[in-house]
């Protein structure tokens, strides 16, 4: 589809392996005990949405962190084009004693925005989150629904050219879940490049151009959305 026609991938993974271990383990030359990802290879092309499917513990979240650059592969390579890549991370660095507005700036800065851009986003965030007067109240006084609204709005307006989404499409109370789901789906269908991790077949069928099936830390199958999801459902 999109990928097949585009000559150069934005992100390219080759035989990527990674394992969590005690941080000092490599320090003292000990072997790490738990292997999260063994051998994963695939490409992401500009403008497409790649779905990653796999059961619990398949290493999907770890994979996103590797693509984002938060973690570094122990073996294999990840090459990235010169684009900004970020996970759609909710409520990063939010502090309960700060107001919604202050947390929105802090969150924006952490997600890579400049201070000017983070401040400029405030109006958009205020409107989208519909927090109204609460935007100037301490974050710690928010209900979980309100926290989700703010967290989503900050991440949504800070998102980069390449967005990595882990499971969550919509968050918060019912109304906001519909609104945020629509926003994400719109982001996916525009020519933004998206890597979407999910174990929900329906979500991927609706949004992904291609699907990579991950099993036991390795690429199991990769290809057309319908084909892979059919095989996955049958497994």
């Amino acid at each position: 589809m999109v990928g097949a026609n585009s000559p150069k991938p934005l992100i390219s993974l080759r035989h990527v392996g990674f394992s969590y271990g005690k941080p000092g383990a490599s320090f003292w030359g000990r072997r790490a005990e738990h292997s999260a990802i063994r051998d994963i290879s695939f490409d992401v092309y500009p403008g497409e949405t790649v779905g990653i499917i796999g059961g619990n513990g398949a290493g999907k979240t770890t994979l996103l962190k590797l693509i984002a650059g938060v973690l570094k592969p122990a073996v294999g390579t990840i090459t990235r084009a010169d684009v900004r890549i970020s996970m759609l991370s909710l409520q990063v660095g939010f502090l309960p004693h700060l107001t919604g507005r202050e947390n929105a700036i802090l969150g924006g800065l952490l997600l890579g925005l400049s201070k000017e851009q983070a401040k400029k986003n405030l109006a958009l965030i205020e409107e989208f989150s519909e927090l109204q007067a609460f935007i100037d109240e301490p974050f710690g006084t928010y209900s979980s629904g309100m926290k989700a609204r703010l967290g989503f709005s900050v991440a949504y307006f800070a998102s980069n050219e390449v967005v990595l989404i882990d499971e969550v499409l919509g968050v918060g109370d019912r109304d906001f879940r519909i609104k945020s789901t629509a926003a994400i789906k719109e982001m996916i269908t525009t020519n933004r490049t998206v890597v979407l991790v999910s174990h929900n077949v329906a979500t991927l069928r609706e949004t992904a151009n291609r699907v990579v099936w991950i099993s036991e830390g390795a690429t199991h199958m990769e290809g057309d959305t319908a084909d892979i999801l059919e095989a996955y459902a049958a497994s």
Partner: protein
Amino acid sequence: MTSQRIWGLITFKVYAELKAESNRTYAGYLWWVFEPLLFMAVYYFVFGVLFGRNTEDFVPFLLVGVTIWHWIQSSISHSASAISQNRPIISQVVVPKYVFPTVAFINNSLKFLVIVGLLLFFLVFYGFVPTERWFGLVPVLGAASLFVLGSSFLVSAVIPLVPDLKILLDNGLRAMMFMSGIFFDIANLGQQWQDLLRLNPVAVIVEQARLILLRNEGPYFYDLAYVSAVGLVLLILGATLLKLFDHQYAKAPW
């Protein structure tokens, strides 16, 4: 991230953490003044009144040492936990790790500046006459900052990866306090001990500050150059390790 963005992040995080910290108490920012006043009062009462060691200006001598030590010690121990405290951030976004000890250093230094103001006020109240020599405190604290930031970088880089070192650090800081002449004048020791203790940059910093404020003497260039040089080495070493281990911190299970 460009350096301008990183600086924007650092300054806002400094503001955010100070505000969050002050909002936890009713008196808030007033504690910046009250807390040092309290501990200064305690030292004054114990050593000035109780032990009657007012001779040779022991209380001012002590307070200069104690306030400087308080700054150095709190910056370093906050930096030790700076990265682990920000684990939720580190595990989700790519951010240069030196941001966290830098924020800890700036936070503690801002509080320290308030304390320096109080200290100078106390000295004047006590009877010392401020002279232009007191501006010599600026290069002393500048060199000291290099040392404190360097130590903070180094400690923040290593302790999250080998948490066992935290126990050594706590004891090491205590030992360093006793070897920095906070409670005694190292100039009263035998020459070979003086030479040994003056290898410790903290002892040099404290001594230079006392010379300026209490003896109307100094600061001495070579002493400051020594502190700056040690600070620079620590800073480069710490920054190198933070970069080298950059991806290790998000892996740590705690």
